[in-house]
């Protein structure tokens, strides 16, 4: 087991070093070491997936930070949750690597790209495999670094490097919260290792109530930063500046899900403090709805998919927030596949239109790009949650769980978001693939992507369809029983209300999805109520959505703006004027008094003589005053 884990972890690292430092000989064929490394890692992960037993395997390689009683090991914690995560991460990464060969072909930074990608896989695996919160944090930040490098990959473009910087800093804000969480844990439990912490919480749960609330809240702050939940989501839409396979891998399947994984991993903590769970769920729900509204009006394919990712993550947080950890992970699992598919398909569209992303300029691509179109359609259907596909099972389970545990408000929001999701996905499909081509010039150059890109698309499409079946049957499904060992007592959280969930529930969610598709169909294909007309009548509401609630502007104005102004004021006011002022001031006054005396020695010889005479006078006068003579 140790060998498999280390192999899975260190293979990508080796690949990254090979490409990065010694990559010169590979220049053109840099993708080989990268793809092989991820392939090895994928195989190792599948092997672990097969072998993981009931008891979590804890392995320590060496002691990382030994300070007094704060001993942080560098070790692995492998259980079913880890296995699933590893599986998802490595598989999607492998497909993205293959896809990137085609996508990134001819890019000057080819070698650098694959090095960063491998480094990312290594960091993600480190995050997943870590057996203590500190090491988790190391992976956490490393992943942040890789996203910074990959978003800002084409750093000549100012918008790209700005987006990279923004991503890293916003993540860093989240990480700051995460750090405080780790400190609280250590302060209360005296250790950051999962096994000790969980064991202590399990043994006497009500002992640490106060500390647990603080810890879970801080940890959740970290998750918000990393998984782009409200209010720290602003970096994800800008992250689309990076190459599309990067968006697919990092901003759909893996990194953003780290937050969900972390909450799932510390399910014991969150179960102890249900009120925090409810907070998590409500934040998740709100983000889902909030992102969905913005996705409806956006014209950039990748931005729409980005908002949809934020919204789906919101769903996952609703699940883990309400205690349905397995459901959350299940949705994460399925979402990875169809969102990855959607992004890669968008990538191939972009590849074909040479970087054009604006939907308004597209239309009728179906005939020219059948493979991309079909796979895109499958992904959209999965995302909207239509029965046979994966999306339906995972999303429906979350909605059912929300209803069952009596959180009707969250349930309502979830259903509404499902409607909006279906609507904006099919808006995208009808605008891009159906209808008349709006820009002849682009339409003329259209061509289907090469097989190296379309094959991964079809594999993902198959996964989007098949992935869901594993979870049929809720509690008794294959997936749930597998995760039982890791996520433990499924019913730990006794919610006050326990309403029976009838078949009607399922029918409602499917109906809502179909309604969404119908609306999109009528609006964008038949143009019965012309969207432009609607937009004008909606007036303020439309522009609000269009401008993304002016959130970016608000941030820049308040947070960045005020800080910069205070910095300037502080620099000129305090540093220059106050401190330097006093120092130079003393210097100046000394010089001034000096010059007063300088004038006294006028250089006129005979005035010196006069002064001597005057001096003599005073001397004698003084002698006289002091009772001269004996």
């Amino acid at each position, binding site marked *: 087991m140790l060998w498999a884990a280390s192999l899975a972890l260190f293979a990508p690292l080796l690949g990254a070093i090979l490409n990065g430092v010694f990559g010169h000989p590979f220049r053109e064929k840099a993708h080989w070491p990268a793809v092989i490394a991820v392939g090895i890692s994928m195989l190792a992960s599948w092997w672990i997936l097969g072998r993981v037993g009931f008891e979590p395997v804890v392995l320590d390689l060496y002691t990382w930070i030994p300070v007094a009683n704060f001993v942080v090991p560098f070790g692995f914690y492998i259980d079913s949750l880890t296995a699933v995560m590893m599986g998802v991460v490595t598989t999607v990464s492998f497909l993205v690597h293959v896809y990137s060969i085609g996508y990134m072909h001819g890019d000057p930074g080819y070698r650098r790209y694959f090095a960063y990608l491998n480094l990312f896989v290594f960091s993600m695996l480190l995050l997943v495999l870590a057996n203590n919160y500190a090491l988790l944090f190391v992976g956490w930040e490393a992943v942040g670094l890789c996203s910074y490098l990959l978003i800002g990959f084409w750093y000549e473009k100012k918008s790209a490097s700005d987006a990279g910087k923004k991503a890293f800093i916003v993540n860093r804000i989240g990480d700051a919260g995460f750090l405080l969480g780790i400190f609280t844990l250590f302060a209360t439990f005296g250790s950051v290792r999962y096994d000790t912490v969980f064991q202590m919480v399990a043994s006497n749960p009500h002992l640490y109530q106060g500390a647990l609330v603080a810890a879970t809240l801080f940890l959740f702050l970290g998750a918000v930063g990393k998984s782009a939940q409200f209010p720290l989501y602003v970096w994800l839409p800008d992250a689309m500046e990076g190459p599309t396979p990067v968006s697919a891998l990092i901003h759909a399947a893996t990194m953003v899900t780290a937050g969900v994984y972390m909450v799932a991993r510390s399910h014991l903590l969150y179960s102890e403090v249900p009120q925090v769970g409810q907070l998590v769920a409500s934040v998740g729900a709100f983000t889902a709805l909030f992102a969905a509204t913005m996705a409806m009006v956006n014209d950039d394919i990748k931005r729409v998919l980005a908002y949809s990712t934020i919204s789906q993550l919101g769903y996952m947080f609703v699940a883990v927030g309400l205690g349905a950890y397995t459901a959350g992970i299940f949705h994460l699992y399925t979402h990875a596949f169809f969102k990855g598919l959607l992004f890669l398909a968008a990538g191939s569209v972009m590849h074909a239109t040479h970087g054009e992303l604006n939907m308004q300029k597209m239309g009728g691509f179906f005939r020219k790009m059948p493979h991309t179109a079909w796979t895109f359609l499958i992904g959209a259907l999965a995302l909207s949650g239509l029965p046979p596909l994966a999306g339906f099972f995972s999303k429906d389970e979350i909605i059912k769980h929300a209803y069952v545990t009596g959180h009707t408000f969250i349930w309502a929001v979830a259903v509404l978001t499902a409607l909006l999701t279906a609507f904006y996905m099919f808006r995208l499909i009808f605008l891009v693939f159906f209808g008349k081509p709006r820009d002849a010039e682009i339409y003329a150059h259209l061509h289907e992507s090469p097989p190296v890109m379309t094959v991964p698309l079809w594999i993902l499409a198959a996964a989007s369809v098949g992935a869901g079946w594993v979870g049929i049957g809720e509690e008794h499904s294959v997936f749930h029983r597998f995760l039982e060992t890791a996520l433990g007592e499924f019913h730990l959280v006794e919610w006050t209300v326990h309403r029976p969930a009838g078949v009607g529930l399922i029918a409602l969610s499917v109906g809502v999805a179909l309604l969404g598709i119908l609306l999109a169909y009528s609006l964008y294909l038949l143009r019965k109520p012309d969207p432009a007309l609607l937009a004008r009548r909606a007036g303020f509401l439309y522009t609000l959505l269009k401008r993304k609630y002016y959130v970016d502007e608000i941030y820049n104005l308040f947070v960045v703006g005020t800080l910069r102004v205070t910095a300037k004021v502080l620099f000129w006011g305090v540093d220059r004027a106050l401190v330097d002022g006093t120092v130079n001031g003393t210097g100046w006054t000394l010089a001034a008094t000096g010059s007063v005396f300088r004038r006294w020695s006028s250089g006129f010889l*005979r005035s010196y003589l006069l002064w001597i005479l005057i001096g003599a*006078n005073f001397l*004698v006068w003084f002698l*006289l005053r002091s009772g001269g003579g*004996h």
Partner: protein
Amino acid sequence: MIYFFWLFALLALIGALGVLLETHPVRGALYLLLAFLSIGFLYILAGAPFLGFVQIIVYAGAVVVLFLVAIAVMSLRRIPDDRDLGPRGFLALVFAGAFFLVMLALLRHAPVPAAPTPTPGAPQPLAEALFRQYLIPFEIVSVLLLVAIVGAIVLVRRRPGP
């Protein structure tokens, strides 16, 4: 005897005034000579013949000669208005006068006791004191003189070059 004192005192004052007011170098030097001679005689009158004659030999005999030789060698001419009667000159007079008055006040404040009639002292006691208690100052003065001689020579030596 007393009127001799007034005579020489008067001559000394005339000499001093002469030096103060005279502009012609040689005549100035001669006034000084007059002052020195009268002071010499005053020493003799005050019962210090040795001192008086030494004063005459050294001051009158050598110093003024040196001045005259210097004047002759450098052919110094008369500089008509070399007296500075501006504010500085005025101040000088004021303070010289003030000094005189202050010293007078000091004098009155601490009068010097009128001594018994002075014995025309032979040089013996003076020599006695000079070479007994005050031998060291005597040696120091001799060194000083040596330094002065060397100094004067070096100062005036025509250095080669400009």
